[in-house]
């Protein structure tokens, strides 16, 4: 493991690079964590995945996104996606990696998509782990409504009232929150809406017309344990349409609930991530090693 500190006039971050034990490698897996998280990742998942990637000959890089963990922001108007891209560029150019894979968790997945859209020629593949379909779900999914922090509850309440009219009791509110959440799944816009706050209508149309280079692939790992995808099939169709709108053809879906029960979800998601990277690299004509089955037993 190696500490990487990236710093410029706008922000600074601390990352951990996990190079393979046997030395050099062409591919780097860059991991973007979820909101209000850090380079450790949810349930230490990034640490475990980075070690697994390293054992399989893939370099892994995880770092604190702007405003989280041990990063520092020096200007308020920071373009976060550009800032993240700069940090990735720094690592990629310093260590001369040929294939860059992005793996984003939750809101990190949204950012991975946006980076891929901005720099399609630079990203060999993107793995969207438990992508958040709409920002409001961030605090609806985290815990039951009655456990929400007050200020966030107020924000949710204002949304609920907009959709459902007056709320007279906490029970009604809780029920309305879940009802609203379910209705969100059928909304036609997810991350497009997320970005549209900052972009004009014309920009949005242009973005929709961008086609990703054929080598770029996207894999979506959906975890039914989280409430983002209460209805797996509906969620999958929804996400597939949105990804195709954004120029990603034929996204691969991995549903964790259909896998062997004796393995935990992290192990399954990690195994699929490594396999996906190997397949993408193979498509580019590089030789691909075998996945070390033993290393999947975390």
């Amino acid at each position, binding site marked *: 493991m190696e500490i990487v500190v990236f710093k410029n006039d706008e922000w600074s971050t*601390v990352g951990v690079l996990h190079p393979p034990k046997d030395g050099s490698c062409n591919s780097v897996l860059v991991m973007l964590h979820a909101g209000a998280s850090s380079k450790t990742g949810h349930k230490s998942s990034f640490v475990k995945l980075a070690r697994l990637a390293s054992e399989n000959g893939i370099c892994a890089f995880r770092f604190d996104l702007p405003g989280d963990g*041990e990063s520092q*922001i020096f200007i308020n108007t920071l373009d976060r996606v550009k800032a993240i891209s700069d940090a990735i560029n720094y690592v990629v150019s310093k260590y001369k990696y040929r294939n860059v894979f992005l793996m984003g968790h939750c809101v990190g997945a949204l950012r991975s998509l946006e980076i891929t859209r901005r720099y399609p020629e630079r990203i060999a593949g993107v793995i969207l782990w438990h992508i958040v379909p709409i920002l409001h779900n961030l605090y609806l999914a985290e815990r039951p409504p009655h456990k929400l922090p007050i200020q966030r509850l107020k*924000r949710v309440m204002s949304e609920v009232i907009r959709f459902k009219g007056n709320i007279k009791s906490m029970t009604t509110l809780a029920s309305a929150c879940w009802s609203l959440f379910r209705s969100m799944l059928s909304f036609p816009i997810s991350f497009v809406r997320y970005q549209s706050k900052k972009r004009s209508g014309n920009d949005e149309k242009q973005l929709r017309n961008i086609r990703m280079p054929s080598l770029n692939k996207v894999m979506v790992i959906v975890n039914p344990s989280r409430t983002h995808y209460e209805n797996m099939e509906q969620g999958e169709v929804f996400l597939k349409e949105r990804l195709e709108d954004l120029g990603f053809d034929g996204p691969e879906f991995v549903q964790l609930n259909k896998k062997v029960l004796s393995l935990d979800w992290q192990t399954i998601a990690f195994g699929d991530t490594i396999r996906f990277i190997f397949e993408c690299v193979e498509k580019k004509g590089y030789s691909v090693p075998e996945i070390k089955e033993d290393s999947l037993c975390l």
Partner: protein
Amino acid sequence: MKPNHLSATSETFHFEKLGESILYISTFTPFDQPSKTQVVLICDALWDEQDRTLLVNTKLSRLLASHGYTVIRFDYSGSGNSGFSNGYITFETMATDLNNMKAWCASSFPKAELHTLICERVSCNLVFTQPTLTSGFRKTIFVHPILNLSHFFKWNFVEREIINSNAYSNAGLSETQLIGELQTQSEISLNGFEFDVSFVRTLLGSKAVWNCDLQEKNCLYIFDEGYYRIKDKWKDTQRKIEMVIISMRLASRTNWDSEDLKHDKVFLEDLFSTILNYATGDGDRGV
């Protein structure tokens, strides 16, 4: 008081092999070193809470460093960015790490005074079980101790394992059955974390911390406002208690004047000023 993201501190991050573990250590030092170096050691939370508290701890470290303290925080082995040792996290491994860190502080800053030990969540419970860990420090601050480890463990791991539709829940086990099942196994994986079965038994068998014998020492307990009843329960003791709203899950904060962030700003300032006042003061404030 607005947290100052100083440019007034120097920050280093590195891995250090201490004993059998490789620990991730962050050091925040003031640019203008005071004549006497005073070390504040921050012991983080564990599991999911470690991930959530990192941002707050980092901001707190920068704040304290801007007031002249040398602040050191670390991840316990097997937690956060620190390496896994050949086993699981237990109170014994945590105590070893804490003692190693104290020794490392003494060797890295030979002329420094160990000033304040700040424990968060389960780190508080560690010190409650082994009060000698505070030796050498002038002051100890307990931030939001877990009052009932058994309840904490059940809620955060057992119930969430069931909610997460994992292997156990597919076997149709209730919480009670699952706990019974767990106690027969030698290795336990719950909600994405691995446990030693004896540690699970320790956690499940733990009661509230009322009996801990630290009230005579120079300690401050900080609880979330939601735990206001504690103040009543402990009113006859000599414990110094502060109630602040603790918002550990702070998302990216760049615009502190935003209306949306006003509440979190107040929470954070309240927590920081409570800690800073106690650390810099004479420590004699009553309840």
